[in-house]
């Protein structure tokens, strides 16, 4: 079975025109001026992994559109008792879900769900694969600060390998002709990473990576993963931490983004996180209208 119309499984498979439509629609969404486009609909939030931003943002977005939301988390549900992904899917469909928003530690879990369940499936992050709503809200945020994505220099720093945010961002930015630089050590930015989409280059040096950057995207350093790769934390900080001095290497009007959660003192300093160029909280704010647009589109209400 093909995914139900309105599903959002990833950025890679979306046409640029569809992304533009979504972003434009998102600009017309305002959680403070509710439009009851999803009145009486049920949005099931199926979270197999912990989340603060994404979960609350989808929930507020759904409620702002007049939908009911039900949150199901792995802990405290039948998932704990060994219920399979598909059986959980069939069950929430049977209780009357109109849309399923799913976050899962395994890449492709939403795709497996979409093969069998006949309601729109929204990928809220699947393993190391994609995080499409994050890429859309990031594009939304960039376009509030920059005129266009075309030709824009975007540098993504850190753990690209383990980042679904980075993969979705690369697909989206590449579709609009941005110039993407991935910066980090080989363990986190493998050579193969530049094959993800057209217009991507890689570098090991911040000086090289930041020169001429319009947008700097930082990723969370996952301590446990560094340990597994035998990367020294202090060396990472010395080479890749974003501080005020390094930020000066980027363009004067460069903005700093981060999908969160941020770890101060690791991938960035407090000066940068709280500084005038940071757009980290703006990203969080923009998550709500973006996800309102995603949910409305799922129900065929995008006009």
């Amino acid at each position, binding site marked *: 079975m093909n995914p139900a119309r309105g599903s959002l499984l990833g950025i890679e498979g979306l046409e640029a025109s569809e992304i533009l439509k979504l972003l434009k629609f998102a600009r017309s969404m305002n959680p403070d001026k509710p439009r009851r486009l999803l009145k009486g609909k049920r949005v099931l939030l199926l979270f197999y992994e912990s989340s603060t931003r994404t979960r609350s943002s989808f929930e507020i977005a759904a409620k702002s559109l007049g939908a009911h939301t039900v949150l199901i988390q792995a802990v405290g549900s039948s998932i704990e008792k060994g219920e399979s992904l*598909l059986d959980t899917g069939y069950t929430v469909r049977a209780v009357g879900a109109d849309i399923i928003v799913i976050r899962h530690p*395994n890449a*492709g879990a939403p795709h*497996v769900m979409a*093969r069998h369940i006949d309601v729109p499936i929204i990928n809220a992050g*699947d*393993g190391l*694969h994609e995080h499409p709503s994050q890429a859309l809200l990031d594009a939304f945020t960039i376009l509030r600060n920059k005129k266009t994505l075309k030709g824009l220099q975007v540098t993504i720093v850190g753990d690209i390998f383990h980042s679904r945010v980075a*993969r979705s961002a690369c697909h989206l930015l590449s579709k609009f002709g941005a110039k993407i630089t991935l910066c980090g050590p080989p363990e986190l930015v493998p050579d193969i990473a530049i094959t*993800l989409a057209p217009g991507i280059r890689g570098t090991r040096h911040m000086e090289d990576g930041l020169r001429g950057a319009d947008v700097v995207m930082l990723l969370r350093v996952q301590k446990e993963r560094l340990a597994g790769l035998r990367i020294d934390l202090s060396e990472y900080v010395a080479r890749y931490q974003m501080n005020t001095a390094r930020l000066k290497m980027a363009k004067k009007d460069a903005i700093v983004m981060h999908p969160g959660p941020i770890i101060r003192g690791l991938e960035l300093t407090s000066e940068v996180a709280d500084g005038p160029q940071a757009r980290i909280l703006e990203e969080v704010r923009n998550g709500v209208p973006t996800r309102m647009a995603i949910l409305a589109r799922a129900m065929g209400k995008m006009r």
Partner: protein
Amino acid sequence: MNAGKNRAAATPSLLIKGGQLIDPAARIDAPMDVLLKDGRVAEVAAPGQIKGSADETFDARGLVVAPGFIDLHVHLREPGQTHKETIASGTAAAAAGGFTSVCTMPNTIPVVDSVEWIEWLRQPEREALVNVFGIAAATMGSKGVALTDFRALQTAGAIAVTDDGKPILDDAIMREALVLGGELNFPVVQHAEDTRLTEGCSMHAGAQSFRLGLRGMTAAAEASIIERDVVLAMQIPNARLHVAHLSTADALKSVRRAKRAKARVTMEVTPHHFVLTDEDMRDYDSNYKMNPPLRSASDLEALLVALADGTVDAIATDHAPHAAHEKDMEFERAAFGITGLETALALGITRLHREKHIPLSRIVELFTAGPARCFDLRGRGSLARGSVADVTIFDPKKKWTFEAAKSHSKSKNTPFDGWQMTGKVRATIVGGKIVYAD
């Protein structure tokens, strides 16, 4: 009881007439008639030259008559996992795929690591439709710690040892296995995977795995084990190493080196590894998940060269049935393996013969004389007079569409569902008796 009945009612003699006999072991590729009598090949002669009458005649005009196909690598899942496959259902699939002999892997529940289980596999109650040869575990419980009793297992009928599904990782244990195997003329089959490097991996490491966010198994995780084993096999007198499902160009280099040095090293390649690459998987479809994984296009090209030039000894399916609920789930959590018995010949003919122009006789060799040599299956792999009357008859030009739902296997986990292929089995004959006819 069955065996007794069979003895009482002797199999009728069978004359296979008008076919093209391809018997690479006997260097025959010519129109020939074949007479089967009392479970043996009684006579092979030019068309119309066989005198005397047979009880039955098989009209093989337009068809290839070949020695019975041998699959060195199948998982029949018995004992223990009968929801996936049984010896009865797995051998029915084998018969439909033209295989008259299959070698079954010991990674069952419990592991086949004792004489009792080797004997159990061959009891008539299993209702095997084709010959089943048991491969025994190389270490107790396939735990990789202590060797099994090779001598007793061999005497009981095991044809090789392996810990398949897992590698024999420990250097000392592998050396010990090859030493003992060398003394007994007993092949040690290696599933080459350095599992220290592949934890949590579900496909080949490359651009595709990066794109899909799946952890990848590197080619090096296979090649490093093969390289070590080849070095050991070249040092240890008479050691016999058989490399299961070789999938990478790098590992192939080690095997080539061993063969040049005349070491007793043999290898098999699966149909899926010469047909598909890691780029073929779509939408996290776990019918593309197996171990070793589908590799890169350059690995596949290297396998095609080795299949053509004689380096590869056998095509083996690694038939690995799983129930739907064990496959239709998160890709990373789904079981490894696909079925393969009913598609092997057609994939061989379609990909290797029609597309890559490898002669049909070489493909037949990879299904017959080649595998028979790997495990010393005496009297099989050839239709020379006096051989066991195991015969595979197929139409090399017949186009057909494989439908997984109609498979004889209990499981339907295959990426080839709905594939149009060329080359179809017409009859499978085991011990002179037709066990499958289309």
